[in-house]
């Protein structure tokens, strides 16, 4: 499914031929899904990713996909014996799946991270926490992205 932005650009013929082929690719969502899965595999390898411990705070209805505040917190004592090593954030529908990877340690005190992401289209945002014991935990939020009603970009 093309995003509304892509459709508008397509309709006005402002895309180059190669991107036109890419945008019209009926498999584009399958390709993006595969890219997401590959990105997650790269992080976790064969290890199972369990839901839990992670809280992904992202607005379910997004005012503007260009700047979306995201906060990830992980339930962890953050001691030398048990801490969060890394937090990875992914999106499902962006041209590439990575958002940000944060590397923490016991010195963080709390496993928390805030940033602002770009989310191109309605879909899932996924946060995966890598713990010091080698386990992986995740949280997923489905978000709705609306397009601004009045754009200024060259439709005329």
């Amino acid at each position, binding site marked *: 499914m093309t995003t509304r932005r892509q459709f508008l650009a397509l309709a006005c013929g402002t895309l180059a031929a190669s991107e036109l082929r890419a945008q019209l690719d009926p498999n584009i969502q399958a390709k993006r899904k595969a890219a997401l899965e590959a990105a997650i595999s790269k992080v976790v390898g064969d290890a199972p990713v369990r839901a839990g411990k992670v809280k992904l705070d992202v*607005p379910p*209805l*997004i*005012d*503007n996909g*260009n*700047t*979306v*505040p995201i906060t990830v917190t992980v339930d962890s004592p953050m001691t030398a014996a048990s801490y969060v090593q890394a937090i990875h954030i992914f999106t499902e529908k962006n041209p590439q799946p990575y958002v940000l990877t944060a590397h923490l340690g016991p010195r963080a005190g709390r496993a928390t991270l805030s940033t*602002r992401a770009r989310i191109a289209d309605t879909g899932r945002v996924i946060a995966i926490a890598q713990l010091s014991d080698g386990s992986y935990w995740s949280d997923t939020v489905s978000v*709705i992205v*609306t*397009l*601004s*009603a*009045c*754009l*200024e970009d060259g*439709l*005329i």
Partner: protein
Amino acid sequence: MRAAALFFAAFCACTQAGEIPLAERRSGYEFMGRETRAMQDDDATNPALFALLDGETLWNRADGAAGRACAACHGDAAQSMKGAAARYPAIVGGKPLNLEQRINACRVEKQRAAALAYESKELLALTAYVARQSRGLPIAIDANDTTRPFIEAGRALYERRQGQLNLACAQCHDDNWGRSLAGTPIPQAHPTGYPIYRLEWQAMGSLERRLRNCMIGARAEPYGYGSPEMVELELYLMWRARGMKLETPAVRP
């Protein structure tokens, strides 16, 4: 035929029509999600922060053939500019000037420096910095014998249908505020926080830029930056928002 006419009349009666009563006016802030509002509220992480810092630098930098900074005449902006942005557009030399034009007039006449281009990083930064000094103050545009003809000219522009979509500002922002347009809530169109950091632009922008966006959205020929129509419209909108608090620098979707 008669049933259809009755139905149509009933439908029109159900929509809000005409000016928004003063007590029902709400800033665009209230139409945003919790997280976007938090972006505006936290001074440390408001994305307009850099524009404010740049504006402060420009305020204190000597410029032009006269080799003077804004600060040379105006001193500490927090004192001298307090309330200024709440009074603009103002009638200067018989016609309305907006804040950007007033700043440029000062540059040209007092600093003997070149005017800053509309929507340039510098003009936005300086305007944001000046307007920030009025944050929290009520918008203070008064309808008097001097301003009234221009306010009415602005009102006429606001109520005029335009463009391929044949839409008037009033139809969305007076009659249908609060409803959704393409999934986004329609705000009441009060310029309570300009210049804003607009998430759509991922940058700072002026009220004029935003109005041009709207006009392009209605497939109308947008008024030029600094044109008389544009400033009259700004004056009307600020008068329409009189008494509402200035939020500059606001964050808007």
